[in-house]
């Protein structure tokens, strides 16, 4: 398995995949907002609102905080491209996209940590209390969600014995008994990880700027204009990618194996359906739970870590 010389079809598939993520990520954000508004009896701002925000930001001037270094300016583009790069590696249109050989789950997790680390460095660059606090809290969440993610990956990759996402998908759809207790637990853990990694509600409130409780927003506090837009857009993509990875692992059925136009279109339709469903699910969770105290956050993430390890263990005890 390796990358052979690129054919136009492959380039097209990858380009489409990138484009899909770029365009769809803000829409998904909008969708979650709509469902949340609906659940709390508010008037939604519309599906395109995140896009409008982004475009507005891109048009604004950049205000740089005093005492910043070059790192501060470099971080948003790097962050953005790392996430975008990850979106090329996650299979969602096809089981085995052209870049499948690099679609290694460990690499994916690595890329997400890279993105996080970059963002945290940017936050600490100026040395404001909020930036430092955000970076610190982000790492506090991540030091357990990242291993939990890896453990989840390991659990799902136990059937294929490999961390290549296409092989995982294949091994999970390949006539196996689809219901495994370990997978269930892993899925549960994944939900917790998802909420933690993407600054969703019991962990962080994406909508608040209440200084003492925020994590993600605290890191972006000094950014403005296009730089902020890149950060926000990247984060939206990250959320989408996490959902896509979740789909790959836990609900991969319906993903086309062969790259014909028809199957891709059908697959995209199924995928869009799944995403809308999941987005509603997130909104539901966010509406049901209140934000955790910051000191309780490690308990939450530890739960994710323990669940994921438990899933791994269960596989050995019950399923082999």
């Amino acid at each position, binding site marked *: *398995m*390796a*990358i052979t010389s690129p054919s136009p079809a492959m380039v097209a598939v990858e380009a489409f995949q990138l484009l899909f993520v770029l365009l769809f990520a803000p829409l998904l954000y909008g969708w979650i907002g709509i469902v949340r508004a609906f659940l709390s009896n508010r008037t939604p701002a519309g599906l395109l609102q995140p896009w409008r925000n982004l475009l507005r930001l*891109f048009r604004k*001037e*950049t*205000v*740089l*905080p*005093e*005492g910043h*270094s*070059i790192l501060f300016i470099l971080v948003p*583009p*790097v962050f*953005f491209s*790392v996430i*975008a*790069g990850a979106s090329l590696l996650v299979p969602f249109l096809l089981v085995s996209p052209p870049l499948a050989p690099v679609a*290694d789950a*460990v*690499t994916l997790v*690595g890329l997400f*940590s*890279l993105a*996080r*680390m970059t963002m945290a*460095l940017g936050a*600490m*660059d*100026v*040395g*404001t*209390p*909020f930036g*430092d606090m955000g*970076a*610190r809290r982000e*790492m*506090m969440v991540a*030091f357990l969600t*990242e*291993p939990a993610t*890896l453990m989840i990956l*390991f659990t799902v990759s136990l059937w294929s*014995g490999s*961390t*290549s996402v296409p*092989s995982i998908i294949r091994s999970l759809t390949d006539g196996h008994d689809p219901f495994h207790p370990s997978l269930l637990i892993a899925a549960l853990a994944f939900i917790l990880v998802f909420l933690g990694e993407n600054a969703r509600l019991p962990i962080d409130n994406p909508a608040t700027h209440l*200084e003492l409780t925020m994590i993600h927003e605290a890191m972006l506090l*000094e950014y403005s204009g*296009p*730089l902020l837009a890149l950060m926000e857009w990247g984060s939206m993509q990250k959320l989408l990618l996490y959902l896509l990875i979740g789909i790959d692992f836990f609900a991969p059925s319906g993903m086309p194996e062969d790259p014909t136009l028809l199957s891709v279109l059908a697959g995209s339709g199924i995928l869009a359906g799944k995403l809308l469903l999941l987005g509603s699910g997130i909104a539901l969770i966010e509406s049901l739970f209140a934000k955790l105290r910051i*000191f309780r956050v*490690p308990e939450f993430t530890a739960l994710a*870590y323990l669940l994921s390890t438990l899933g*791994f263990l269960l596989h*050995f*005890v019950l399923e*082999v």
Partner: protein
Amino acid sequence: MIPPLTTPLLESLWILAAWATTGLAGSWLVLRIPALSRFLYGLLALESLFMAHSGFRGLAERSDTRLVLAGGIPGLPFHFRQDPLSSFFLLLLGAASVGTLIYTGGFMKNEPPRTNALFFLRTALFLSSMGGVFLADDAYIFMLSWELMALVSFFMILTERKREDVRRAGYLYLLMAHGGSLLILFAFALLASHGSLSGPHSLEDFSFFSMSKTLLSPPLALLVFLLAVLGFGAKAGILPLHVWLPLAHPAAPAPASALLSGIMLKTAVYGLLRILFGLEGLPQLHASFGIGLLLAGGVMALFGILYALLQSNPKSLLAYSSIENIGIILLGIGLSILYLKTGHPAAGAVALSGALYHAMNHAFFKSLLFLGAGTMVHATGETDLNRMGGLLHKMPLSGLFVLVGVFSISGLPPTNGFVSEWLLLQATLQAPSLSGTILRSAVLFGAALLVLSSALAAMGFLKFFGIGYLGQPRSEGARDAHECSLPERIGMGWLTLGTLFLGFFPAFVLSGIRGAVFSLSGADLPSFSHEFGWTWLLPFPPHGPSTSPIFLAGLLLLLALPVFWLARLPGRGRRRSAPAWGCGYPGPTERSQASAESFAQPIRHFFPVFFSMKRHIPTPDDPDPVFSLAVEDPHWPLLYRPLFRLFSLVAESAEKVRTGRISVYLVYSFATLLFLLSVLRWR
């Protein structure tokens, strides 16, 4: 007239001699003409380069040559051997030390000539003795080099011997090192005394060749394993023998720390591999040894990084992080034993290559980071991260180098730390192929600890870089910081390049490791055979997927270029500056920045069992309210102090023998005589 360097072994031996002579002659020269020192360090670096070449050549040719030189004790001349394993570590030694040596030339230039000359001598002898360890092929020359290495490094730590804490650290270090050596000696003795298959015991039994023919009973095999692990562990900082490490590194000058942590710790890894795989031999190991090592390594990794997170001295932080990294390496070795002994050679080979790869990585990025810490301390005159800050403005280039190190040690793609972590994780993923829940759970546990500690490492090094280099200066020293000298930058640059190289061209590195792994375990690594194979990591499971750091890097670069443009485009490039948001306070001061301790706070809360804390929270009516927190390594109150008390107790009771009264002494003699006579008569 130099004999032709027909084998890498000869080349290596010549370089050992060259290092030593350069050291002796050079220190004399430095004493007289201090200005020469940076050239002389350059000369040493050149020799290191040759050593790297020799190691490279040995790996490329897969040469395995032996040589016997006159010397040693009668009947046991000096045996030398360079096999792929030695070559690998020689390459590590040579390549990583080049950067440190060049750096040292700049670092030491303002020291008094005497200190400079002594340090030069010690550095050279240190390199030479480490090379001796890697090349030794009998127990005597091994122990000789090993102890010499300990001794020389002891003096390197003692460079600032006027400081009490330095002397204590040096003492503790040498004590631990010597204790370890004694255990190693015991292991060798057991191996040698069971070595001769036929014929009487002779000194030839102490050659590694003869030792590798040993047949040990299972309990003895276990004993040798334990002795080797503890003996080499004392040097590598295995729990609970690690206590010297976090004391020695802050005490030693930065280049010494870099050599100590970057390279010397690897001699312990080498020794462990040599004894376990080379001398005791795979057939005599047991899978449970692997489990033990795996779990020990995992716990060590977690412990190391947790304590690293707590440190506010950058060098202590790095020292604890070394414990973590050695833990990861041991984990890999344990994993490989486990797999190899249960009939999974491919997985075992991958685990072993992961361990070796990590050893190489650690040599580069840890040296780099220690040198970076050295520049931080030099530039600011401070040893506390809380009094640094904003150094990236003053020291952009060295800051950039350190940043590369930070990314690498955090195991982020596409750096080298990620590569070794990938290999180890892939190896742990082969757990399902093992039979038995215990084995699998052990591997699982190891994997869980591995991923947890690498996630924590990212946090720790974010703290290291974020507090030290980012933000605003927190002290006068940090405000007046300056970029380091040219040799220092070159040295760090070399290490940075090496780090990047190791990350981008794993296939190349692995082709070298392949020989070492094969010579150790008899198992081969899977590989790609197609034309782009060199851009990839090895495929694992065989014919399975892989990853390609350089491809990833290229991809990211390809994407980042348009994004940069995007970042500038719509705002018409309009930019202005404004004060940062300080929560409504007029001017945020440097004191409002996060402190180094704040990073550790959630960790302390989350892992209370690991820490023994003394916290003082002032009461409301306290006239002088100062919050204080002291965290102590629990090994001190739980292990070392009781042990010392026990020793004192024994020593006290031994004093009772010494009554000072002649009559009592005569009674001793009398009783001894009567006792022996009666034993003899009525036995």
